[in-house]
């Protein structure tokens, strides 16, 4: 366990150093890193409900879009400053998660996954029908060209999400979530109020996700439903958390870094379908060979190239 803690501190340290970078970077890298901080935050947030609690949510992107639209609406229609909109986004998403989470989290496994998937798609469809939110044409936010500002905000959100995860992991709440993930019935008879714990986890997850969404909206100055409710965001969140090691504090950030790096190497600027083909292929390979992600290897387990462990894992999961 101490090895894992060290990993977390190293990452926090690196992020602190990253705060000093902007003056030395050109616009391209500021953009790339800001995006990385955002994706990592989404993965960290997802990890709370998906990794720790074991409830695989395909609906977290709904909170991202909700946060984005809450920010857009309060800034353009109600003329709030960004920080007001930021908080509004978090509150709206948290309420959304609490209210809808109460019935939806009663579902397990496949049903929960599908219910959250329909939540994501349904929220997008709903937003696409509402005139105050621009219907399908999107909304434009006030322009802010201080890209270093957004770099630091996203970095702060990422740092906060890691710290929040750290505190949860070591708390009573965190143990409740892990117990629920491992065996919900056993957790209940030991005195854990699973319903409350699950909703709590999803609410925190939603809040962080919405914060990133709000910042994204202000950053890009224009949002529309297909962009901020894009299911690929959700899949990426999951892959990043899985790759780095779900149910670990900083795993999602590591996974996010790896995926972002691969994306960069493949030439993220071109939008050719080949990019997606290769990414899809890589994910297939990762999912088969590294179901527990990289964390077991980083935290002092056998080396990644230990074929025996991989073979044993495969044998357990194939027929």
């Amino acid at each position, binding site marked *: 366990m101490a090895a894992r803690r060290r990993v977390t501190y190293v990452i926090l340290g690196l992020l602190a150093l990253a705060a000093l970078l902007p003056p030395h970077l050109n616009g391209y890298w500021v953009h790339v890193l800001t995006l990385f901080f955002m994706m990592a935050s989404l993965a960290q947030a997802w990890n709370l409900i998906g990794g720790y609690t074991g409830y695989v949510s395909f609906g977290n992107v709904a909170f991202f879009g909700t946060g984005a639209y809450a920010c857009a609406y309060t800034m353009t229609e109600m003329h709030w400053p960004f920080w007001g909109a930021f908080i509004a986004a978090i509150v709206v998403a948290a309420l959304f998660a609490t209210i809808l989470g109460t019935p939806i989290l009663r579902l397990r496994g496949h049903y929960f996954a599908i219910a959250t998937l329909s939540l994501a798609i349904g929220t997008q469809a709903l937003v696409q029908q509402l005139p105050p939110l621009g219907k399908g044409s999107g909304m434009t936010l006030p322009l802010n060209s201080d890209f270093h500002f957004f770099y630091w905000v996203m970095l702060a959100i990422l740092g906060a999400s890691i710290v929040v995860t750290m505190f949860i992991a070591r708390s*009573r709440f965190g*143990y*409740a979530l*892990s*117990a629920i993930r*491992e*065996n919900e*019935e*056993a*957790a*209940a*008879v*030991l*005195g*854990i*109020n*699973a319903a409350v714990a699950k909703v709590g986890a999803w609410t925190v997850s939603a809040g962080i996700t919405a914060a990133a969404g709000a910042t994204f909206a202000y950053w890009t100055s224009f949002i529309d439903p297909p962009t901020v409710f894009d299911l690929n965001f959700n899949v990426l969140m999951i892959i990043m958390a899985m790759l780095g090691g779900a*149910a670990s504090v900083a795993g999602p950030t590591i996974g996010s870094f790896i995926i972002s790096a691969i994306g960069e190497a493949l030439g993220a600027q071109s939008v050719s379908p080949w990019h997606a083909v290769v990414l899809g292929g890589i994910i297939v390979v990762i999912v088969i060979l590294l179901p527990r992600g990289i964390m077991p290897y980083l935290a002092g387990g056998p080396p990644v190239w230990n074929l025996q462990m991989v073979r044993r894992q495969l044998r357990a999961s194939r027929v």
Partner: protein
Amino acid sequence: MSAVAVASRPALSARDIVVRFGGLVALDGVSLEVAPREILGLIGPNGAGKTTLLSVMSGTLRHNAGAVLVGGRDLTHIPPYEIARLGLARTFQVVKPFANLTVRENAAVGALFGRHGLRRSFAAAFAAADAVLERSGLAAHADRQASDLTLADRKRLEIAKALATDPEILLLDEVMAGLTPAEIDQAMNLLRSVNAGGVTLIVVEHVMKAIMGVSQRVVVLDRGKLIAHGKPADVVANPLVIEAYLGKRYRGGSPGA
């Protein structure tokens, strides 16, 4: 069968419990009482409804009629986690360890959320967990992953988790199944020591040696009905009980092996 009454105020009282699964009646008006600090054995052929009764008591299963009273309070409609916090713990026949947590963490979950859990500090909870592991003979495995344990150790862990909640009443569902005779002796000693510490036990078992050696009273279920109760030796010689287990042919003769 009228309620199995005890002299003083019972620790737990089940009254006319009825459980139906569609057309099947699993429990047909079962009533029993357990005295404080008593060890009550609950036996019966497979499918008699023993686990169903335990599930009703622990709140995991909702009964269709009747009531379960603990400390005078009706547990109907109370969710399992609240029942656990009131001081009633249970083990599961098919053990449910927290596989990816360590043995110590498994016990700690019980200590963090059980009867006094929410009032305990982390340090106190882990200390209590360690104490429970010591009593259950798992101290040596404290840092191992629960999934790495042998069956006997996993059964011990199942008991340890429940014990860590510091219960007043403990329901045990076939904790001896699959154990060697030596392990059964160890388990029996553990149950006796737990009981000596003031915990009321209801023990569901098929291993007769354990039931005879540990119970003060025994209650017998067959096809959802209570058919006999009394001292272990009396119950075992009861012709109705013999018939339930072995069929009419053995009713008049001596108990089987």
